[in-house]
């Protein structure tokens, strides 16, 4: 049976992991490659690097990070942030990334998904959706890292990107993100049942129970979390044991 995935996410700025991390035995707590190795050993099912580098010139650093990671970690790697052209995608895939996650450029030009998926295959095109609740049962999408409302309904948008050839959706609830109060189960459930492509839920993970809930009630195919894993509030192994105990299929 297909296992539900647990995905740690690393925010990387100019080649350095943002937020201090205290893993034992690390030579350099800010080195994304070293942290990726730790997650690899811990049994993470995939890894996401989110490049939050502001300046365009320094984006090249990410290519180097991906190359070094791919030499040491033999696990699926997704890279998001700052991708705006087919050339960017090609370069990342060539460096060792398996998927790229794209948000703003897709909203501005939906054909970009079509072009990218027909060129590289749907399987490597993840569309990131940042959604914020506007009223009961309605969510609007945001671009530019959550700064700009795009005035589009999140569920409709998810259906559209699926049709355009997205292979997966990385769904972040802006209301839950950073709260540690749990994922937005309603939003995740709505989108996950609307589309026939996998959905990764993001935003709000604080406990094992939150993850269980989004994978069961929220029907997500994967759960992404950043700070609970970074700060070692919960270990990946602990999450998997908890899920298994509650009847969710996970990889040992």
């Amino acid at each position, binding site marked *: 049976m297909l296992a539900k995935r647990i995905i740690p996410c690393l925010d990387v700025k100019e080649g350095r992991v943002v937020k201090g991390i205290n893993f034992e035995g690390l030579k350099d707590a800010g080195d994304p490659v070293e942290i990726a190795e730790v997650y690899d050993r811990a049994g993470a099912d995939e890894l996401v690097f989110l490049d939050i580098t502001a300046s365009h010139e320094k984006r090249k650093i990410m290519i180097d990070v991906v190359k070094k990671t791919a030499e040491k970690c033999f696990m699926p790697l997704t890279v998001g942030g700052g991708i705006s052209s087919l050339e960017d995608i090609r370069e990342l895939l060539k460096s060792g990334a*398996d998927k790229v996650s794209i948000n703003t450029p897709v909203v501005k030009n939906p054909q970009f998904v079509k072009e990218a998926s027909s060129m590289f295959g749907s399987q490597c095109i993840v569309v990131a959706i940042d959604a914020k609740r506007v009223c009961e049962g309605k969510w609007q999408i945001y671009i530019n890292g959550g700064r700009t409302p795009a005035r589009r309904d999140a569920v409709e948008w998810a259906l559209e990107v699926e049709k355009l050839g997205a292979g997966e959706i990385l769904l972040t609830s802006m209301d839950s993100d950073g709260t540690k109060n749990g994922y937005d189960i309603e939003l995740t459930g709505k989108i996950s049942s609307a589309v026939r492509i996998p959905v990764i839920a993001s935003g709000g993970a604080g406990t094992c129970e939150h993850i269980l809930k989004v994978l069961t009630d929220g029907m997500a195919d994967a759960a992404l979390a950043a700070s609970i894993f970074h700060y070692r509030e919960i270990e990946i192994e602990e999450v998997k044991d908890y899920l298994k105990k509650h009847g969710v299929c996970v990889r040992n």
Partner: protein
Amino acid sequence: MSKIVILDYGMGNLRSVQKALEKYGASVVLSSHPEEIKAMAALVVPGVGSFDDCIRNLKRNNLDRTITEFISSGRPFLGICLGLHILFEGSEEGREKGLGIFKGKVLRFSPILKVPHMGWNSLEFTASGKKCEILKDIKDGEYFYFVHSYYVKPEDKSIIATTTDYDVEFTSSVCSKNIFACQFHPEKSQKAGLKLIENFVKYTQKART
């Protein structure tokens, strides 16, 4: 040192396959030239993109014949994902004919399922899978990483090495003489995947001596 060649389509992530092979001491080259490929000890065909694009690409460069000849020479062959699909006669994904090394077709998952079938799923070994050298020391039920929308259905059931359950019980790898081809991505399957890669490198070294 025997050289392993990875067929280069100029697309997708070949780096992980290369690095995994190198980890076990293989000397690896990437190539799309028939003459160069012919001289190598083993051939790896990873696959990304669509079936028709792939076949057309191969035909344009005469690589379809190169693969077929390489395989019939008895040297080790490893196909991954689309590298498994092209060995069959044709695919529901397109109109082009496959290489036809194995009889059977490539089918699409039912529309009621989430497609692509993406993530970690387990392998169930067949009797021939248990004897397959490339799967040595990998335990029945082990999880591997999958990303695909189509799966192969061989006519000759004896080539099936493992099956996997995604609503349907599909063929997740085949093993026949010098050919091993899998639907999952060993280069992305952490420890279990690396074991498979190591077995392939060892098999290549043995085939040389």
